[in-house]
């Protein structure tokens, strides 16, 4: 009984959204619900040429009676297959409204696009209840007219590249967070009193700063005439200002800054629990400081490093605004593509499919993490 709230919580906040995301990514019933007669008329069509006039008749009848709030999503669905389908349908609906139910209508005369096979095929494909088109499109694949899986034409989509880039950026940020966070966490663990508090506070600070303030601060610091470049040129390290922002460097710097606490805190909590006498013990047994670090402190810190890396990586792949504000042309991450489909074009199928891909990647990572952390000490033993 006591775990009932937990079960409800899990169901409402974890399983339900997951189920919705999956069903959004594979369900495809907007069109068949609005165009039932057309769907029936196209059931026997072999997909070649133009379907008989009965199909056109059915389409006109469906459009005439269609509820607009349901027609909209169906039309958007078709338009995301072939750009321009929306205006075609709007025009066709107006024409259908002008004739009475069952009266003959010449669709090609309404719009000559109805004389093209691909528009009919798009409808025929869209009346199946399930589809893999979103999942395929999420990685730049599509089904060719024969139904085989093929790559989209070059230059049509960059989802795969953006997904790879997302993982690359997240991986880079994670690696840099480890490189900075591990020594930093050890430093915190080695200090005490107000020094420790100050160090902890300064790493937590970015979490309390608003995203825009933080990003603006980085722009001011890193731009060509910014403080960092002024320092670099002032010290004579470089004659020309370095490009530190509006490129990958800026994205990595800004993301590392805000994600560092997610690395430092887990490592700190692990390192802080390592008995203080292990390093003196290693020294007394003949280990020079560096070897003692690699053989003792580092392996014992690994659970924290792993947990921190997992956290940082998972949070990083969802980043969207920071890359948009401080990134360059090819620093957009997959979350911004998801936001484009979900918010701007209300294409929830694509948003769900891209979300699923991220989720799958995260799940795999989590399993790897589980394996690694169970196997105890991954290095040093």
């Amino acid at each position, binding site marked *: 009984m006591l775990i009932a709230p937990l079960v409800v919580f899990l169901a409402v906040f974890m399983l339900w959204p997951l189920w919705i995301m999956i069903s959004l990514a594979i*369900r495809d019933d907007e069109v068949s619900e609005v165009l039932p007669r057309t769907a029936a008329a196209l059931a026997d069509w072999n997909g070649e040429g133009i379907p008989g006039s009965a199909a056109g008749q059915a389409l006109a009848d469906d459009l005439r009676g269609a509820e607009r709030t349901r027609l909209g999503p169906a039309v958007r669905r078709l338009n995301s297959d072939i750009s321009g389908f929306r205006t075609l349908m709007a025009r066709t609906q107006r024409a259908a409204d002008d004739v009475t139910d069952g009266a003959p209508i010449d669709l090609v005369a309404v719009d000559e696009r109805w004389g093209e096979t691909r528009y009919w095929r798009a409808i025929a494909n869209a009346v199946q209840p399930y589809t893999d088109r979103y999942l395929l499109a999420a990685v730049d694949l599509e089904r060719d007219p024969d139904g085989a899986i093929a790559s989209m034409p070059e230059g049509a989509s*960059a989802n795969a590249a953006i997904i790879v880039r997302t993982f690359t950026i997240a991986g880079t940020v994670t690696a840099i967070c480890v490189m900075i966070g591990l020594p930093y966490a050890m430093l915190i663990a080695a200090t005490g009193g107000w020094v420790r508090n100050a160090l902890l506070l300064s790493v937590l600070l970015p979490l309390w700063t608003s995203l825009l303030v933080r990003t*603006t601060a980085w722009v001011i610091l890193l731009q060509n*005439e910014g403080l960092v470049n002024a320092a670099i040129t002032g010290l004579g390290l470089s004659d020309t200002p370095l490009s530190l922002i509006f490129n990958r460097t800026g994205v990595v710097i800004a993301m590392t800054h805000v994600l560092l606490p997610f690395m430092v805190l887990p490592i700190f909590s692990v390192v802080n629990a390592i008995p203080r006498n292990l390093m003196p013990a290693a020294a007394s047994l003949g280990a020079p400081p560096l070897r003692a670090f690699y053989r003792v402190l580092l392996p014992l810190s690994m659970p924290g490093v792993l947990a921190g890396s997992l956290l940082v990586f998972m949070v990083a792949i969802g980043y969207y605004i920071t890359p948009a504000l401080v990134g360059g042309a090819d620093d957009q991450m997959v979350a911004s593509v998801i936001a484009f489909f979900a918010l701007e074009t*209300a294409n929830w199928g694509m948003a769900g499919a891209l979300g699923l891909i991220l989720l799958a990647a995260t799940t795999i990572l989590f399993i790897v993490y589980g394996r690694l952390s169970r196997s105890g000490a991954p290095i040093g033993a």
Partner: protein
Amino acid sequence: MGISGSSSFLAAVAIITGLSSGVAAARDLTVVSWGGNYQDVQREIYFEPFSEQNETPILEESWNGGYGVLAAQMQGGAPSWDVIQVEAEELELGCFDGIYETIDWEMMGGEDQFFDSTVSECGVGAIVWSTVLAYDGDRLDAEIDGWEDFWDIETYPGSRGLRRGPKLTLEIALMADGVPPEDVYDTLRTDEGVDRAFAKLDEIKNDIVWWEAGAQPLQLLASGELAMTAAYSGRIFAANETEDRNFEVVWNGSIYAVDSWVVLSGSPNKDAAMEFIRFASLAENQAKMPPEIPYGMSNVDVSNMLSDDVLEQLPTAPANLEGALETDVNFWVDNVEELTGRFNAWLAQ
């Protein structure tokens, strides 16, 4: 499952928002706009006077646009918003989907009272805003004429700012390539036209800094990071005013669009909502906006109430409309997914 995946998602959203916002019918008139400075002015000239005059409390919210947000509100069953200021795409999509109440133009004072492009079945135009070429007059002492100069990196060295995304960018590229504004969308409707726009963008690809939020290009212009940028005209004059900048605006080749007021269909406050839009569309009320933020107004009488100084900053000033381009909403609604995919692929190359 009988209901579709998306509607169950929206039901989830509805339940969760419903828990916090209470029963729809019991709420105050909820007006949603773009937030920030702009909404501050709107509060002063529309919201508060209207509330006072009609003894109708107004609940304000703000949003960042996106049709998906509205579709989610509607399909959730009980939208919590009444009046929303939307961009032209959201107006077009929602009107087709039937999620807005139809406008009674007689009540608004007649269609003749408004500029043509601000009149539609489902919405009343609120402002006309424009994307223009801007540069810092303190840093660049030259007569910049239009987007051809934007592409001329040799004569005017420095980075260029453009909004990340195909919209505006492709139009600008074609105009820079010599396509007259009236032919831009006809050209873009052909595959060759799109290829031509991307080919033009290739010429300065490495010099472009892509911005996303409207405040960015002006910060970057001010810091010298950008030599020229596309930017929203209203913000430029505001920056000149409040931050003592000397930003110059090139109206030639500017691209303007209309934002409109809409009422979500089924709104429990429909009458009050329409009354609010009427109030916000009166010339004497609209005339208070441009001196604060120089946007064009939908009511034709507004320009008679403004000083010449203010008038010449507006996208709707006749001189500024010369060589300007109106965004073709239908083109973008039809093509935004395909061209965004292509744009992203082009960026990734």
